[in-house]
């Protein structure tokens, strides 16, 4: 795959220099083994992520974005299984490892120290019968046995303060915290072992826009100092355009376009990305009539032949239904569409 070549200029937004490649995903496919046969929720996904980079993954419900998150972190539970592909993780020291085939024990040692996760529903992610602090101490001491409980508690206080939560809140039960605090504490928890990668699955959909902006500002500031990489998954493309260095757009389990946030905003190449781009009305620019994408996202168990987007695509031709288009470089980004050049001409 040539996705690696595309990110040769390792500078991100906010003037950050991006480090070497941290994660190299190749041909990752995830199946749900249902009683009616396997359903492919995530098909042949390839992407790379550099140290310190924010990669946004945008998609609608059923696009496979959440499945991708659980597969990347190998948290999928039956009936979801990783059917093919590799997730190569390159630590600072030591050999690269494939997270898909790594033994459970070695994977456990990588978890949280190298890759942490922030999930969608903050309320449900904290153990309701454990105090907040105990859930921090738990993981801190698991990965650093030499640390005393007292030191772990001090570290917890420091982490909570980092995200703007008073340290004494460590004694609270999750239900005693507000929604915003719970979400912040999950981010603090993710940073507990200073990971190289934090995977975030819709981390701010449960909070309001005001709180979302505050949390993201904090996240960005923390990332500036701690240099972890982020995979940020959401359905809100307009948010990603502001936050991410690069954006992958998913449709029906596949990446249809991947490129820098700037390029995705300025010149989306895939008809679906283009449709998504104009599906968000502008906040301040003059209002004009816009249209959405006709039809509805397909059922993964019953995909149309060829390009899954073809039935909703206004550029679609017979070619589109013959084969699934591969991701290939078009302009500055990578696009999975058979006729992007023609589409460009049509515009």
């Amino acid at each position, binding site marked *: 795959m040539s996705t690696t070549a595309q990110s040769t200029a390792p500078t991100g937004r906010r003037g950050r220099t991006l480090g070497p490649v941290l994660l190299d995903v190749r041909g990752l496919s995830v199946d749900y083994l249902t009683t009616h046969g396997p359903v492919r929720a995530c098909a042949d996904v390839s992407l790379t992520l550099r140290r310190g980079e924010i990669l946004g993954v945008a998609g609608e419900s059923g696009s496979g974005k959440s499945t991708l998150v659980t597969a990347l972190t190998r948290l999928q539970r039956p009936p979801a299984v990783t059917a093919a592909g590799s997730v190569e993780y390159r630590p600072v020291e030591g050999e690269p490892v494939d997270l898909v085939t790594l033994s459970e024990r070695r994977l456990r040692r990588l978890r949280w120290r190298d890759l942490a996760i922030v999930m969608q529903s903050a309320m449900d992610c904290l153990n309701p019968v454990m105090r907040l602090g105990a859930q921090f101490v738990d993981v801190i001491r698991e990965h650093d046995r030499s640390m005393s409980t007292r030191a772990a508690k001090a570290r917890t206080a420091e982490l909570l303060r980092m995200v703007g939560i008073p340290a004494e809140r460590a004694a609270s039960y999750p239900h005693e915290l507000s929604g915003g605090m719970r979400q912040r504490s999950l981010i603090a928890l993710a940073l507990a072992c200073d990971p190289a990668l934090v995977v975030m699955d819709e981390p701010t959909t449960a909070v309001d826009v005001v*709180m979302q902006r505050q949390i993201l500002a904090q996240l960005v500031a923390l990332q500036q100092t701690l240099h972890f990489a982020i995979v940020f998954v959401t359905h809100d493309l307009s948010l990603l355009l502001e936050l991410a260095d690069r954006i992958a757009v998913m449709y029906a389990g596949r990446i249809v376009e991947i490129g820098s946030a700037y390029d995705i905003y300025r010149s989306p190449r895939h008809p679906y990305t283009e449709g998504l781009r104009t599906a968000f009305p502008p906040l301040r620019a003059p209002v004009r009539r816009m249209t*959405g994408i006709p039809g509805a996202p397909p059922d993964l168990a019953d995909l149309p032949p060829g390009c899954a987007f073809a039935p909703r695509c206004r550029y679609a031709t017979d070619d589109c239904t013959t084969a699934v288009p591969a991701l290939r470089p078009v302009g500055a980004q990578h696009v999975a569409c058979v006729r992007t050049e023609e589409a460009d001409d049509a515009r």
Partner: protein
Amino acid sequence: MPGDQPVLEAVDVGKEFPVHDRFGGSRAVRAVEHANLALYPGRITALVGESGSGKTTLARLLALFHPPTSGEIRLDGLPVTAATPRGEYHSAVQLVFQDPFAALNSLHRARYMLRRALQLHGRGGSRAEVERASLDLLRRVNLTPPERILDSFPHQLSGGQRQRLVIARALAVQPRVLLADEPISMLDVSIRLDVLNLLATLRDEQGLAMLYITHDIASARYLADTVHVMYAGQTVEGGPRDSVILQPKHPYTRLLLDSSPDPARSMADGADDPFAGVAEAGEPPNLADPPPGCRFHPRCPFAMDECRREFPARTTFADGGWAHCWLHRKGRTGELLADVAVS
């Protein structure tokens, strides 16, 4: 064909709910307070607010799900009381629900739902007439092919189709007011705009008065003629959409706008990082124990003593907007607007 007289009005409406905890205790939650709203024919009014701001409660008060604790609701200028026949009221006012998956009974076909709606409002007639009227309704909400949709159960339809069916069912009553409670928030991003466009068409072609409730201020601007902003149960600002969104006159509206994603702003050449300089702004209050006076004062950078004491009266502006903010009563309007101009 916009009219000058409001069809439906909420005048200084308040609502308290008793909230029971699991152990049998109960407290009053003041979900809505000092809420004012007027819906005009041929106009869409957006009600913008965060979750828990009372916007859904206000919609449900307008839909007569429960009576307001204070203030009154007026239909065609006449106050609605306990004696007002519900059937009559609901043939004028219908509600479109947030969740199209929940709003349709999964055990009924579309045909049954439309037929009942038509029959209950005196549009029954013969079987052929009902069938024709149902097909016509489906066409009006762009559900095609209508013949097939009529035979479908809700689970055979996509989210967007279901929401259209919910709208069609509401239209069967031939209402004059449509209350749409976050009608697109549960739909996939790519199909949201078309549902909004449908609502706009209904306004333009049938002169419906419409309330569009949303937390997405950008979509409010896209669809609505008038925008009202609600915070912690109080309507704090309102006016023509561009007055409210381009020149907010309440500190909360400004905070909301600054927080909303706006790629155009951050992608502009030489733009600042959109996340730079975002200050901590606290969280909305607990409505069981709200702050006195203006409920926004604990989060407001301009807060003064008056704000803590009393809810400010309405100030009306030349551009048709209005706001409940002490800044305007105290002649400090300039400070707020100066800030907006900078950003």
